[in-house]
Every structure is written in structure tokens, then in C-alpha cells.
């Protein structure tokens, strides 16, 4: 069994490598989709710092809930790229045996559980996970990733309010990427920060630059420490941007060019690469080697997915009931 601790190295170079892995993995997925190898899926290009920063602050005992835009969360937590890619392709070797496809991948063995592609679905389940952690005295915290769009669903209100009232150990992470499929966030709310909504439930909140992995990691560590100490929920907003479209393929014709290019210039990966090389933490050669390692992993994952078998037809009804 893969363990979390065996995977999660919290150094900044490791963070960069994980971010590169996510980026490369998702760009490859999109390429394979374009080539007709898999159904459509969503990528988190531009949001890697949020996934890696938050997850670097978690322990093995913590549980994670995610949504349709999950590859970053999965890989940051140490999921096997082969099995994630195979699942995206609907293959029997995928984490869910091909039944999920890209949109609801859970990996119980590393604590990524109950993924839902219903926007808000993850929020509805997170309080229950928090309740189990609280009542069964399991120590861990429930971390739930959701979008700015999910925050406009009524279940957001119900979930955060219940966690507040019952003092549940839930870390709400809103990845505010400015888009909700084909609708700009500004068309859906009169506020700019989901943390403003969070605060109204009487819980602690923070907003952090979601494109700065170390800032995210620090904010997440503070939040996690607070939750472990008090048992109470916390809402952390990572303010970021969805650089690719909603679902592959997406020409982003509806996206304001100026806004897009402004955020492109804040790409969390290029920024970090530049910084680490400038600061002398990483040489250009080491960086190139890192990229090559990642590229190979992703190529292997693609091969694994493509060559894996589809599930057999007896799986049509297998496992509906316990």
C-alpha cells in the first residue's frame, strides 16, 4: 500500500517537482483526449500551487475530499499517476476500476475519499467525514477542496454552517479560480472573496495568493494547526486562476484576453522555477533533470493507461450494493 508519508516530501524542490508532475500529467491527458484516447476531462492548469501547498500541510491521518478538478489533489497526495491516468481512460486498472472515469476519482488508501463531480457534492459529504473524525476520535482533519462556483450552491451554506455549529474538524479550501465552467465568477456574486462568506458562520478564514506555493503551504499549516488544536473548522481561500478551459477541449473564446494574459504571467510554476534557480536552490541542469523525470513518469502513465484493458462486462452491475 502506498503511504502518504512515503510520498509527501515537503521541501520546496519537492513541491516544484509535484507541481511539474501535475502540469505535465494534465497536459498529457488533454493531448490524449484530443487524440481520441479518452473522454473529456477537466484540468487544473494554473492551480497547481494550491493543491500542492495545501496538501503539503496535511498528515497521513487526514482525509481529503475533492471534485471534478482533482488530478492535482490526487497526485499531490501521492496517488500513482498510472492508475489515475488509467481511471481517466476508463480502464480496469484505474483506481475505481474504470467506473468513475476522470470525474469522481477516489483513492481510499491515501485518504482521498468520496470524490463527487456534483458541484457541492464534496461539501455535503465533508461534514460527515468531520463528524466521524470527531466522534471516532481519529485525530485527523477533513480537507475539502471546492470551487468558487460550489460556494454559490446552497449546500455550501449548509455545510459550513453545520461544521461551525458542531465544531467539526474540517478545512474548507476554496480554490477561487475566477471561473465556473463558462461563467465568470463576477457574474455570480457581489463579493470577491469566498472567505467573506466563510467568516459569517463564525469560523476562522483566510485568503492566500493561490499561485504562491510556499504562501499556500504556510497558510494551510496555520489553518491545520488551528483545527488540530481547537477541533473547529477553518475556511482557506486560495485565490488563483484556471489557465486552461473548463473541460477539454475548450478554446476559451469567451475568456477576456487581457485577464487571461495577466494571470498567465503569474503562472505558479514558472514563477517558482525562476525563483529557485535565481536563489540558487536549483541549478538549470537540476531543473532540466527534474522535468525529464516527470516527463518519463507521465509517459509511462500514458502507456499504462492506453495499454490497460477495459473492465469486463460483469462490472456493469458489480458493487452497486454492499
Amino acid at each position: 500500500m502506498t503511504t502518504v508519508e512515503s510520498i509527501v516530501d515537503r521541501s520546496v524542490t519537492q513541491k516544484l517537482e509535484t507541481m511539474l508532475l501535475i502540469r505535465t500529467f494534465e497536459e498529457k491527458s488533454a493531448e490524449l483526449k484530443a487524440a481520441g484516447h479518452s473522454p473529456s476531462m477537466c484540468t487544473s492548469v494554473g492551480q497547481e500551487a494550491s493543491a500542492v501547498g495545501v496538501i503539503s500541510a496535511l498528515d497521513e491521518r487526514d482525509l481529503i475530499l475533492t471534485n471534478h478538478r482533482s488530478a492535482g489533489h490526487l497526485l499531490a497526495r501521492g496517488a500513482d499517476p498510472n492508475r489515475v491516468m488509467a481511471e481517466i481512460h476508463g480502464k480496469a486498472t484505474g483506481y475505481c476500476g474504470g467506473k468513475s472515469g476522470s470525474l469522481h476519482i477516489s483513492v481510499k488508501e491515501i485518504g482521498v475519499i468520496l470524490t463527487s463531480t456534483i458541484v457541492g457534492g464534496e461539501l455535503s459529504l465533508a461534514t460527515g467525514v468531520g463528524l466521524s473524525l470527531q466522534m471516532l476520535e481519529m485525530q485527523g482533519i477533513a480537507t475539502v477542496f471546492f470551487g468558487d462556483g460550489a460556494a454559490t450552491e446552497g449546500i455550501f451554506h449548509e455545510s459550513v454552517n453545520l461544521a461551525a455549529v458542531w465544531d467539526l474538524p474540517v478545512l474548507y479550501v476554496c480554490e477561487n479560480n475566477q471561473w465556473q465552467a463558462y461563467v465568470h465568477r463576477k457574474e455570480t456574486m457581489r463579493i470577491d472573496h469566498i472567505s467573506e462568506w466563510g467568516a459569517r458562520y463564525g469560523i476562522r478564514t483566510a485568503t492566500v495568493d493561490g499561485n504562491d506555493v510556499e504562501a499556500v503551504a504556510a497558510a494551510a499549516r496555520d489553518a491545520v494547526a488551528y483545527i488540530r488544536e481547537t477541533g473547529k473548522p477553518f475556511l482557506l481561500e486560495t485565490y488563483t486562476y484556471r489557465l486552461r478551459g473548463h473541460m477539454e477541449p475548450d478554446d476559451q473564446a469567451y475568456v477576456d484576453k487581457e485577464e487571461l494574459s495577466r494571470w498567465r504571467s503569474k503562472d505558479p510554476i514558472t514563477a517558482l522555477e525562476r525563483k529557485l534557480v535565481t536563489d540558487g536552490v536549483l541549478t538549470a541542469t537540476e531543473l532540466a533533470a527534474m522535468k525529464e523525470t516527470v516527463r518519463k513518469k507521465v509517459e509511462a502513465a500514458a502507456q499504462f493507461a492506453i495499454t490497460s484493458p477495459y473492465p469486463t462486462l460483469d462490472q456493469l452491475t458489480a458493487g452497486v450494493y454492499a
Partner: protein
Amino acid sequence: MTTNMITPDQAMVDGLAEEMRRDPRVITFGEGTATKHYELVEEFGRKRVRNTPLAEGIIAGTAAGAAATGLRPVVDLLFAPFLTFAMEELVNSAGKLRFISGGQFSFPMVAIARTGAGWAVGGQHNHNIESWFVHSPGIKVVMPSTAADFKGLMKSAIRDENPVMFFADIGLLHTPGEVPEGDNVVPIGKAALRREGSDVSLISYGKTVGKCLEAANLLLAEGISAEVIDLRSLKPLDEAGVLSSVLKTGRAVVVHEASGICGVGAEVAAIIAEKAFSQLKAPVVRITGPDAPPAASYPLEQAFVPQPDRIAAAARRICA
């Protein structure tokens, strides 16, 4: 076996309390659960018996999330129409995530909802939507008609590894009935033969089981021997139980309070029409509530429910 006279309402709570005693993972919450069942709070404490905010979606979602991670929640969602606020959590999460995740999670939870005529409070408190859940994969559905089954099915539902919808017919809740003492577990998936007969099978569940028994009495006076089957578990449906009765009688009247169209009775009739075809002596007839919301007005509410005379008339027609 000793039995006591207990209302179905109390029988449900007794079943829940026994299971809470048996298994510390069983917890219960809902809008007013801790207020209305203060005796449970006293016995099991405020952590296991909770009031909630008024928010059915998160009540059901919390139950599902907790069920998948080690607890066994029983949630009270009050009246069936309020389930409309919890369909996402019940159907998309609790019902589907076991399959979708490739079997990684199970959802041992129970959701209670009241339904049916009895309170005369109208169509937003009374809507028999059990067939929605029967149609949805991954969920089990029960709807008892006797006090003993209210308790015994509650116990089974709590022990089941799957999400179980527990529909409580309001019209039955306050009439005491015999409940055996002790750990009496009624299996989910098994219909009950309430009365033996040879000419026609009256197949029903919930309060209309009683109406069928009354109809059977009316019919007996005319020399028609009616068998009465109480489905009590709507999913899984006891297909074998239904068929063995119809294969014997050759005639079936399917009865329920829910609207007919796409109701549980449609499924039962379709099964019979397919699998007992060659034995059938007459058309399979359904006697159900109309395709309308139940009105609050007392006489209209009562008229919504299939009554013994209508059931008997249908049986008479196909026995002629």
C-alpha cells in the same frame, strides 16, 4: 414470545434505541431529534443524539459522509416532500458512490420520512415518493405496515451496509399494535403473507395493506377468497413471494396510496405480466392514489387513499 402493544411511532424509536445500545457507531440526528427524543439524549448523550439546523441536504450529506467513514447514522428527514431537498445527497452520493468508486466505500445509513394521508395537512407534507428511490440504484427502501415490522425493519435497516430509506405511513403511526419483545429483526427483501386465499392476490404495502384486509373480508362474504401480500420491503422487492402468490391465484390487484403512474405498483404489475403471464386468468389491475397532490381537506385526503370497496370491486371484476 411475549408481545407488547406499542405504536409504530414508538416501535421505530425502540428499534433505534436497541441498535444504539448494541453498536456505539449508531448515531441519530435531525430537525428536532434531540428535543423529541429526549429519552435517547439521556441514555446516549448529546453527541449521539443531535438536533440539526433546518437543512435537509446537509443532514443527508453528513449522514452519507459519516457512514462512509465509520459511523452508522440514522437521520430523520420528517416528511417525504422534504426529501426533495436531499435528493442529491441520497441519490448521487449515498446511492452511487459505492459503485462509482469501484467499491471503495459503503454507506450504512438510514433515512426516515413520513408520508401518506393522516394529518390532513396537504400536498407538501404528504407525497408518496417511495418509487423515486426504488428507481434509484444502490438504495434499499422499506415501508412497513405493522408495529412489529416498524421495529424489526428499523433494526435491519440500521444493520444493513447500504443506505436504506425508511418510509413511515403517517396514518399508521399512532395506532398501537403487537410488537414481540427482544431482538426481533425483520429481514429486508421478504414480503409477508397477511392472509391466505386462493382466488386473487391483493398486493400492497403501508396503510393500504389494512384496506386490502378489509376488502378481503368483503370479498369473503361473496365467496371470493383473497390472499393479501404485504410487500413491506420495496427494494429489494420480493419477486418470488409475489409470483408464488399470483401463480397460485392467477389474479392480482396491486394496491397503494402513491400515484399509480410509475409507482411501485407499476413495477409489480409489470413483473407479474412478464413472469406469471401463462398462469394469469385476468388482467393485472392497479388500484392507487390519483395522479394529483393530496388535498389537505379531510374528505379529499381520505378519498385519495384506495378504500376497501374500490379494492373489492376491482377484485370482483377480475374474478367474474
